[in-house]
């Protein structure tokens, strides 16, 4: 109980700090950074629930991130729904999709799981590109998202969207933190470390796997909703394979063994993107070299590295 209160207190403090910051430092770029960070960090942390905590290497998690963007944007554009209803309905759609997709995928082991999740994501991507009438095809949803109003507060203002994104990130992280700290979280780690033993100890492995798959899909979609508000629309690039690649990079750069690793990794990745693309056209070259340095040199993400240096032990993860 004490831990939960501590986490909540930290989260509230950070959100308040962020909300007050623009009065002393009115940088719009910083606000944009926080909004994008919120979206990607939710996505990456949700993927780490699968990768780091359960040992499920999903290559197709971007499906749910992209589904979040499209479902939310479509609901807002095509129906007259208010933002809160569209928000909730999007999460419900993701839940149902995740149950179906998860039921098909989790029976598979190791690398086959990775491939089938990838195939699922690319299949949905194909459908979105082909269904031009509904989704606008490869041009994405044009025209913007109307009525971006939440309980009377307009999210068209950058400051409001910035605070909203910070709050959503804090709430999402707190909830995911809670999940991994319960006995459910323990069973995840047990499955990751030794699935057979976990089964012998009475854990219904497939049910736990399906549950975490669905939960992580919900948080990925949450990240998608934030992104959809940021670009005021939805684009096929947000459900294409490289977006899953970005999340994997974030996890590896930040540390697969620490809860906040993906958040740190997201910040590193976004910073890298913003800084490097200002200086050169060869972003791929720079990113590739840095990834190699982390993967081969440090051999672990930043937060894991720091934790180990400080004498602690990261919660494990991929070797």
């Amino acid at each position: 109980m004490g831990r939960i209160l501590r986490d909540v207190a930290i989260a509230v403090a950070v959100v308040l700090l962020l909300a007050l910051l623009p009065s002393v430092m009115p940088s719009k770029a910083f606000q944009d950074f926080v909004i994008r960070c919120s979206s990607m960090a939710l996505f990456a942390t949700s993927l780490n629930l699968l990768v780091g905590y359960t040992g499920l290497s999903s290559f197709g998690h971007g499906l749910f991130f992209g589904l979040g963007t499209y479902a939310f944007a479509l609901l807002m554009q095509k129906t007259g729904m208010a933002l809160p209803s569209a928000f909730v309905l999007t999460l419900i759609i993701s839940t149902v999709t995740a149950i179906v997709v998860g039921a098909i995928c989790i029976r598979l082991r190791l690398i086959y799981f990775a491939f089938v999740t990838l195939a699922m994501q690319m299949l949905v991507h194909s459908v979105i590109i082909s269904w031009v009438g509904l989704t606008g095809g490869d041009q994405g949803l044009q025209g913007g998202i109307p009525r971006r109003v939440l309980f009377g507060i307009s999210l068209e203002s950058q400051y409001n969207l910035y605070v909203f994104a910070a709050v959503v990130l804090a709430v999402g992280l707190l909830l995911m933190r809670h999940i991994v700290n319960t006995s459910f979280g323990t069973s995840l780690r047990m499955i990751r470390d030794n699935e057979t033993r976990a089964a012998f100890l009475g854990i219904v492995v497939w049910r736990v796997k399906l549950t975490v798959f669905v939960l992580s899909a919900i948080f990925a979609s949450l990240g998608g909703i934030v992104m959809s508000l940021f670009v005021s629309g939805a684009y096929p690039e947000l459900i294409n394979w490289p977006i899953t690649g970005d999340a994997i990079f974030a996890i590896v750069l930040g540390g697969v063994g620490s809860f906040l690793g993906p958040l740190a990794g997201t910040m590193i990745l976004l910073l890298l993107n913003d800084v490097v693309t200002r200086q050169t056209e060869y972003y791929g070259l720079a990113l590739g070299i840095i990834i190699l340095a982390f993967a081969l040199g440090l051999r672990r993400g930043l937060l894991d590295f720091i934790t180990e240096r400080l004498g602690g032990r990261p919660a494990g993860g991929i070797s």
Partner: protein
Amino acid sequence: MDLDALLDCVTTSSCLVTQSTSGLIVGMLLFMVAAGLTLIFGVLKIVNFAHGTFYMLGAYLAYTVFTATGSYTLGVLAAGAGMAVFGVVFERGLISRVYGANVLMQLLICYAVVLICDDLVKIIWGADFYAMGMPPAFQVPPLFIAGGVVPPFYLLLIVVALVIGGGLGLSLGVTKLGKIVRAAAHNPDMVSALGINTTLLYSLVFAMGGALAGFAGGLAAPVRSLTPGMGFSILIESFIVTVIGGMGSIGGALIAAVVLGLIRSFGTIGFPLFTEGLMYIAMIIILVSKPSGLFGKEIV
């Protein structure tokens, strides 16, 4: 959906011949790339996500050598040889550090190399697309077989691919080296305990896999546009082929590649809009029903 057109085609000999050969051509190139991928996975248990880069570099090498010397044969040989060398360097320098590691790590290393090589190609050759053009020996009108249209260059492609693939399959089955490679795929510890230099073996396998992709790139160069990033689409397709055919099975890769090629060529007539989605669905069905693919072996 245009099933009438499809039925029409299958019942006309000219259409049948033309579409079958075009499916074979697509399939054969795909087979060469996928064969290298499946070989590397079968022996080293490494999913080479950078395989498309070998293909791309092979194509660029062939183009450069051809424009410099005027000899297409030299160009193709250079592509294969160059990629064999690159394969060894890649394996020794990077892949050897992640043997046995999680597939995510392999993905990371390979994807990083893809990003780096795409930009290096842009730096060295430029961002514009290049067209090699058909070597003068093949600038001949197409053949007409049973009413169908068959370009001689593509006939050559099919033959060369079959020779290379068949040669590979045969040598793996019959020669001593081939037996060692297959043994290493089955039980690497035992092989090394028998005193065989597995380090050399692994490099050799990567060299072969790389050379295959390089040859494919060189062979395809006259009819492709060369741009940085051209490896991506063939990578996705060769993954689909290796998964369906079975990771580690060369024969499986051949069959799956040909089937995919035929689906594409007849699919363009019958259901032009959703061919790609169909391939993903096929991949999912195979993975769910028989994960090791049609001809692959179970991963222990």
